[in-house]
C-alpha cells in the first residue's frame, strides 16, 4: 500500500463514524436559495492537545503560509484599543478566537495594497509571490462565504479573470473557526451566510487544546494517529440581531428607490470616509497608482489599492465630471449594490454576509441594519404607490 492509498484507507475508516451536520436550511426571501453551500461534508473530528497543535502547525507550515486573526495590542483606532488583524501565524496560540477581526479575511486574498507590476521605460513586469507555499486561512463562516462573492466579481465577471487574485485564490484552503460566541451586530443567519462547505478543516478552541474536524481528504495525513473525538462543530443557528434583508426584483423598483427621500439623511450623517467598505468582507473595488523610485524616476511600480465608492473622486472622470455628487448619493450607491446590483448581475444572493463590520467600523455610528429597515419601509411605500396607480 503506498502512502496515498494508506491515507485514503485511514480516512475511510474514520468516515464510517459519520457525524450528521444537517443544519436548518435558511433562505433569504426574494433571493436565490442555497446560495451559500450546503451542510458540512462527512468528516472526522479529533482533539489535539497543546503539544499536538504545535507539531500540527510545524507540519502545516512546510506546505502552507498560515493566516489567521491575531490581536494587535493598542493597534486600534482609539487609544488603548486593540485591533484584530489577519497576519501570518506560526502557532495555534496566536489566533484570536474571542473577538471579531477588525477587517475580514479578504485582505489575505486581495491585500489592501499590492504591487502589480514593476516598470521601466520599456516594460511592465508582473510581480510574483515571494512565498511559494499555498495559503491556509482561518476564518468564520461569514468570511468564507464572502470569498464566493469576491470570486464572482474578480473571477467570473466578464471574459477576464483577475490574475493577481486568482494566483492566491487557486492555492488557498480554509479553516472554519467555530463561532462559539457571537459579536455585537452579527446577522449571518439573516443572509444565509451562517454555514459553509468551502472549508477543509474546522476548528473549535478548548481548554488545553482544540477540536479539529477534517472535511478535506487532503488534510487527513496531518491527523493520522490522532484520537477521534465525539465533538460536533456547529454553525450559528440564530443571531440576536435579525434583519429582514430587502429584496428588489426589478430595475424600475431599484430606480424608484434611488429617488426616495430616505437617502437625504446621509448627506448630513455620513462623512464618506470609506471605513465601511474597507472593513466589508464582500467589497472588492480598487484603484491603481504608479509610484516611482526616488533614486531613478524612470523605474517604479504600479500598485493597486483597495478603493471605496464612498470616497469623493471614485466616479470622477477626466475633466472633473462626477455622477454621484453628494455623500448621500454615494451611500445610496453602496447600499444598492448590496441589496440589488450584485444579485441582479450574478443571481447568487445578497452582497452581504452579515458580518457586522460596516456598522462596527463606522465613526458616525451609522447602522447598516437600520438602513436596511429604512429601505424595506421605502419599498413598502413604493409598492403602495404602484398599487394605488393600478
Amino acid at each position, binding site marked *: 500500500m503506498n502512502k496515498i492509498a494508506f491515507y485514503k484507507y485511514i480516512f475511510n475508516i474514520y468516515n464510517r463514524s459519520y457525524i450528521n451536520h444537517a443544519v436548518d436550511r435558511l433562505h433569504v426571501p426574494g433571493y436565490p436559495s442555497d446560495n451559500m453551500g450546503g451542510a458540512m461534508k462527512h468528516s472526522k473530528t479529533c482533539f489535539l492537545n497543546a503539544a499536538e497543535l504545535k507539531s500540527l502547525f510545524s507540519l502545516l507550515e512546510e506546505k502552507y503560509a498560515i493566516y489567521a486573526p491575531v490581536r494587535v495590542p493598542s493597534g486600534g483606532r482609539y487609544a488603548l484599543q486593540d485591533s484584530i488583524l489577519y497576519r501570518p501565524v506560526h502557532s495555534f496560540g496566536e489566533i484570536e478566537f474571542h473577538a471579531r477581526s477588525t477587517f475580514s479575511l479578504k485582505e489575505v486574498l486581495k491585500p489592501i495594497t499590492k504591487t502589480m507590476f514593476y516598470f521601466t521605460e520599456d516594460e511592465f513586469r508582473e510581480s510574483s509571490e515571494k512565498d511559494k507555499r499555498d495559503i491556509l486561512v482561518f476564518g468564520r463562516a461569514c468570511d468564507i462565504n464572502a470569498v464566493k462573492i469576491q470570486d464572482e466579481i474578480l473571477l467570473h465577471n*466578464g471574459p477576464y479573470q483577475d490574475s493577481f487574485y486568482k494566483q492566491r485564490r487557486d492555492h488557498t484552503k480554509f479553516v472554519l473557526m467555530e463561532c462559539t460566541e457571537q459579536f455585537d451586530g452579527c446577522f449571518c443567519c439573516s443572509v444565509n451566510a451562517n454555514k459553509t462547505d468551502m472549508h477543509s478543516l474546522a476548528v473549535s478552541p478548548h481548554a488545553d487544546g482544540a477540536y479539529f474536524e477534517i472535511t478535506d481528504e487532503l488534510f487527513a495525513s496531518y491527523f493520522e494517529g490522532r484520537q477521534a473525538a465525539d465533538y460536533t462543530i456547529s454553525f450559528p443557528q440564530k443571531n440576536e440581531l435579525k434583519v429582514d434583508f430587502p429584496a428588489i426584483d426589478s430595475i424600475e423598483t431599484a430606480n424608484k428607490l434611488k429617488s426616495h427621500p430616505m437617502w437625504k439623511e446621509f448627506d448630513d450623517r455620513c462623512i464618506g470616509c470609506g471605513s465601511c467598505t474597507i472593513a466589508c468582507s464582500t467589497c472588492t473595488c*480598487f484603484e491603481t497608482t504608479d509610484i516611482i523610485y526616488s533614486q531613478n524616476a524612470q523605474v517604479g511600480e504600479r500598485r493597486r489599492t483597495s478603493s471605496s465608492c464612498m470616497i469623493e473622486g471614485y466616479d470622477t472622470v477626466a475633466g472633473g465630471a462626477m455622477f454621484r455628487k453628494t455623500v448621500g448619493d454615494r451611500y445610496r450607491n453602496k447600499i444598492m449594490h448590496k441589496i440589488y*446590483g450584485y444579485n441582479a448581475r450574478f443571481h447568487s444572493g445578497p452582497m452581504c454576509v452579515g458580518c457586522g463590520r460596516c456598522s462596527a467600523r463606522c465613526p458616525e455610528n451609522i447602522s447598516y441594519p437600520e438602513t436596511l429597515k429604512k429601505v424595506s419601509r421605502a419599498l413598502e411605500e413604493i409598492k403602495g404607490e404602484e398599487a394605488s396607480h393600478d
Partner: protein
Amino acid sequence: MTDNPMRPEPRRILEIIPQTDNEWTIRIENSTPIRHGQFMELSLPKIGEAPISVSGFGPGYADFTVRRVGKVTDELYSMKKGDTLFVRGSYGNGWPFEQFKGKNIVIVAGGTGVSPVKTVINALCDDPDYAKDVYLILGFKNSDSILFRDELAKWKAAPHFHAVYTLDSGDKAGWKSGLVTKFIPDVPFSSFGGSYACIVVGPPVMMKYAGLELLKAGAAEDKIWMSFERKMSCGIGKCGHCRIDETYVCLDGPVFGYAKAKTLID
C-alpha cells in the same frame, strides 16, 4: 502567468496630430483587432492608466484623440513621435455597426464625444453604399474647441451626408449657433419608412436631452444607441468604478440601446 489581462504592452507612437490647442490625436502602432466604438487602456509608466476611445484605426495603427484634462493626458502632451506608450485592450462592445447597413443614420455628438463615433462617420463617408443618408449633428463649445477640422469639411462635402455643425456659443461662418438638441427636430424621421438608426455621444446632460428630443422627433427607443463615459481603472469588470447597478459600462457597454441607457441611473 503570461496572460495577465492587466499587463500593458509597449507600442510606438507613429504620429501626433494636433487638433486644437487642447486636443491631440496620437497614432500608435497596433495590430489588435478593433471594432467601431471600442476603447483601450492607455498607460504611461509613472503617471497611470486611462480608458480612451479609439478615434481611428486601420492596418497597423490606432488613433486616440485626447483632451488635456487629466494627469495621464497631461503627460501624453509631452510625448513625441517614436516614443513608447503602453496599451491594453481593445475593450467594450462597440457600436452595432452591422445593424446600420442600408439604413438612414442619425448621428448626434458633442465635443470629444465625436471621438468614439468618428470611425463610424468615416466608414459611412468612405463607403456611401453601406448605409443610406447620414444626418450628422455635431456640436462644440466654441470655435476654439472644434475638433477634426479636416474631417468635418470632408463629411460636409459628402453627397449623402446632411451635416449640421453648431457652436454652443459664438458665431462662425457656415456654422449654426445653439445646442445640438435644437437641430434634432429637423431630421425627417417620417420620410425614413422606419429604416434608420440613431447614435448619440456626448456629456451626460447632452445625451439625456438629445435622447428625449429624438423620441419627440419620432425616433423609436430601439433605434437609438448611446455611448457612456465612466471612470474605469481596469476596463475588465473588476475595479468597480464604472458599475451602475448590475451593469458594468466597461464590459456591457460603453454602447447601450436607449431602452437600457435610460435605466442607467448612477
